[in-house]
């Protein structure tokens, strides 16, 4: 039932940044299942969309950080993450009810993969604001888009790879040093 080549196509598209292709596919394939899950478990469609969005963010994040296990079905991954998110939200709202365990495939592993909590989100925005726009742009190219130093140099108008590289490490140092000096933040991300 897995369409491995489709999954691979999606993963590749996430890596290369073809986001609308990925999203449109997920709206069709994963969203209806997540809506059903949430709606059948005391949620409404808006809540389902919220959970879906967080799950998609987790998927992108996990893939981009090279933590995604490609043997996993994307569909299953999103369903797991969504299900856990939804259970947590229900717990938070103190509406404890039995979430139906029927449709679960591989129950052994916790799907809470590279989730971005609200606290993390706030910390991320704050940090990225502190490093300045040049570093922000450069680190996006190097660490998110995975461009080579040569490509970065072209995009940023640097004289060459060496400049790109040294600027990259200066930016990285800047960011990492701010992080190092903030214990609360480290705990937040280590959790």
């Amino acid at each position: 039932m897995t369409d491995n080549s489709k999954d691979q196509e999606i993963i590749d598209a996430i890596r290369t940044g073809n986001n609308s292709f990925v999203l449109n596919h997920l709206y069709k394939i994963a969203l209806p299942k997540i809506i059903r899950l949430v709606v059948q478990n005391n949620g409404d469609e808006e809540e389902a969309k919220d959970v879906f969005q967080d799950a998609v963010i987790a998927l992108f994040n996990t893939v981009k950080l090279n933590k995604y296990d490609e043997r996993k079905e994307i569909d299953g991954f999103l369903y797991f993450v969504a299900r856990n998110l939804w259970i947590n939200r229900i717990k938070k709202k103190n509406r404890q009810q039995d979430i139906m365990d029927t449709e679960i495939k591989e129950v052994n592993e916790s799907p809470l993969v590279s989730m971005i909590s609200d606290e993390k989100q706030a910390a991320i925005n704050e940090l990225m604001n502190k490093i300045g726009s040049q570093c922000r742009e450069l680190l996006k190219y190097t660490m998110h888009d995975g461009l080579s130093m040569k490509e970065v140099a072209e995009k940023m108008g640097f004289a060459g790879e060496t400049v790109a590289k040294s600027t990259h490490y200066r930016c990285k140092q800047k960011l990492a040093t701010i992080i190092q000096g903030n214990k609360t933040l480290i705990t937040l991300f280590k959790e």
Partner: protein
Amino acid sequence: MSEDTQIWEQIDRYLSGEMNPTERDVFEQAIASDKQLTEQIEASKIASEVVVGFEVLKLKAQMTKDLAKPKHNFGKYGLGLLVLIMVSGVAYFGLNSPASKPRSASSTSVSLGPAQVGTLAATDQGTSNAPIATPANSPKTKEGTASVAKELANQKTVEEPQKQVAVVKEAVVIQKSIEEPAKHKVSTEDKKEVSSQVLKKVDVCEGLSIQMDLYTSASCKGGHTGAIHVKMQTLKGGQAPYTFSIDAEHYTDASALVDLEAGSYKLFVKDANACSLQYPNTVVVKEISCAEPAKEFTYNPAYDPAWVIPYNTHKNAKSVKIFDKSGREVFTATVHNGTPNDWNGDSNTGLNVGMGNHPYIIEYTDGTIDKGTIMIVR
């Protein structure tokens, strides 16, 4: 490149596995003796998460835009009501005293929820069976809704009987208790008869039906922790404010009936005119076992950054301890308000905990403990 930034390049190469074995050995020895280096590695990992997270989060705006469906709620409930008014309102409302305002035939209005969606899909796309707006068809769906409303109004007489069947799950209808259950499945013809009866009586409660959605919270085994919740925003029919009861004697205006033990309940609702209706179905408050949450877990740190510690959310966890096979504590944490809520597989000294079964103990402020094992696979 300066001495200073070089270390970050080395860390990058180490983390991405680009170092050859010799280099890696040297570097790992350096890590072992250099606390600052360990911290720098940690910070470097977090930096990646920050940069990637920053970009990835931008997708949210995109998705919110794609999935926006402004009139959704109106579509689901409001439209149903609107059509109801169009169909039976004229025949029905006008004939009653203004004070009673019975939202008649609410079973009809309820049926429109799913029916509308179904018909919508059929007219609009033919295939979609869930009310999702993809970016391409979102505006179209809205147009569709309006026309479907009219269409439905016309079709209703014919199609209603089948649709009633699908209804019951979606939202629940309360019929006045003195009415026969068969009134649940009135066809439009039946309704006309009902309305003529209403004409003769001056009872404000006659013909009244109230609809609402409910959900229940399970009760801990042997405890009184269950509840029946009414989704207040789904209440239709009758006059607000409403009160609720499980014994038809003691009514509460809260939206939840709480402190219930597991079991079956009757639910009564009363509106401002003191019209009391019984919920047609028995409401079941399930029982869950609160004392013994799942006990055996598996966790792969290579795949997941953290294992969510299975606290019993009904109690206040005080501490969590994880042991290795030989019974030594590898991880201890004091718990405040459920934090830390997960464990990343590292011991208190920052080392990776080995594979295999690790017993854990969660201690609660009430002196009770939960025990279990977490099996680490890598």
